[in-house]
């Protein structure tokens, strides 16, 4: 049982957004500022961790044909816990993330990992998987958010970077989201094909 691999695969090999191509919705909408990205990661990872643990724990007693409604109930419960907690203790974050907090329940990453991994593996592996996925998700989100916030609002974490400079507002709006992710995916492809090229010429 290669624990390190289970954890790390979520960051690079099986990065949910860049490789598996799931969990895009919150990615693009929430990366308007670095702090939003971080809070969203924390919220999503919490739900992912909770659901992976529970789904893995009950995997032997859950009948196959009703597993999806059960998974959704578990995930939705954790999302409501996160909703209430944020509303009570971090109201500014709650307001900033808006409708994307309840939308965590339909984040393909969580249901996807529950279905594909947690329901077939031990609790410990599921925990590692969740943490790894969460980290991969978070890093991607953070990179996207930093690019967008710096170029689109001339700020980082809400603090102005270059005083007096007017930023490219487009980056903060929807098109900027699409462009940034598209270019990031392109960069990933370039890295991958370079690696493949080196491997072939060895």
């Amino acid at each position: 049982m290669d624990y390190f691999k289970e954890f790390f695969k979520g960051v690079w090999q099986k990065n949910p957004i860049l490789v598996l191509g799931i969990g895009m919705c919150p990615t693009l909408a929430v990366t308007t500022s670095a702090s939003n990205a971080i809070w969203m990661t924390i919220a999503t990872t919490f739900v992912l961790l909770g659901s992976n643990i529970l789904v893995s724990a009950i995997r032997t007693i859950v009948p196959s044909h009703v597993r999806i409604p059960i998974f959704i109930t578990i995930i939705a419960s954790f999302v409501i816990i996160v909703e209430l907690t944020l509303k009570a203790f971090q109201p500014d974050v709650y307001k900033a993330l808006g409708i994307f907090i309840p939308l965590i329940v339909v984040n393909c990453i969580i249901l996807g990992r529950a279905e594909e991994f947690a329901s077939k593996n031990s609790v410990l592996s599921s925990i590692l998987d969740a943490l790894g996925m969460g980290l991969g998700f978070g890093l991607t989100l953070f990179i996207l958010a930093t690019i967008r916030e710096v170029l689109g609002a001339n700020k980082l974490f809400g603090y102005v970077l270059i005083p007096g400079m007017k930023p490219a507002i487009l980056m903060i709006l929807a098109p900027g989201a699409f462009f940034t992710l598209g270019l990031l995916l392109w960069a990933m492809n370039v890295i991958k094909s370079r690696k493949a090229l080196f491997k072939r010429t060895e």
Partner: protein
Amino acid sequence: MKPADIVKATIIISVIGFISAFSLSFMKKITQEPIAKQEQEKKLAALALVLPGYTVQQEKTVTIDDSPFTYWIATKEENRIVKKAWAFLAEKKGYGGPVQSIVGVDESNTILGFTILSQNETPGLGARCVEVASNETFVDHFITKNLTSKEEVSWFQEQFIGLNASKPIAIHKKGDWHKEMKDELIQHNAVTAITGATITTKAVTQSIEEGIQKLHKALTLQEVQ
């Protein structure tokens, strides 16, 4: 599917449902107080902002034109005279839903303060109505630790101060507000719209005009009582 399977599935789903319901009610219980406290603090902070220098005496909710209208009565003592001021909730549908704000007016219907409580407008356009021109730079905050203690105010909301609420508020399109525009705008009892978000601006001005009329009706009702 065998009957045994159906029973097993039902039991499992029910158990999970119960556990979920219990844990959620528990969460609700422990978060209820902090949430209520937040909203109370937010309201008090907004009132303090729109009624600078005044002490809120009373909060009243009456029905005007078939809908509830909330307003606050505040007083302050100046040169031994008690001056009155009022704050009221103004609400009007903007682009993406109701834009809610609190407006503070004094006895001559001059706007003392204005703050937007909630809005659902388009980011980058209408949502700029709550945009704060924060000037604290990254370098300042983290590196040189040169912390500016400037009060962060939204230019859109600040420009309403000093206008006469009982007269129609005109909308000019002059781009972002600067202090230099103030005199001309006050002369015309106008505000400058957010570029590309005239609808949001209009919703706000209309909510103030409608709000002040309701306030006058409510005050006459109050006197009659």
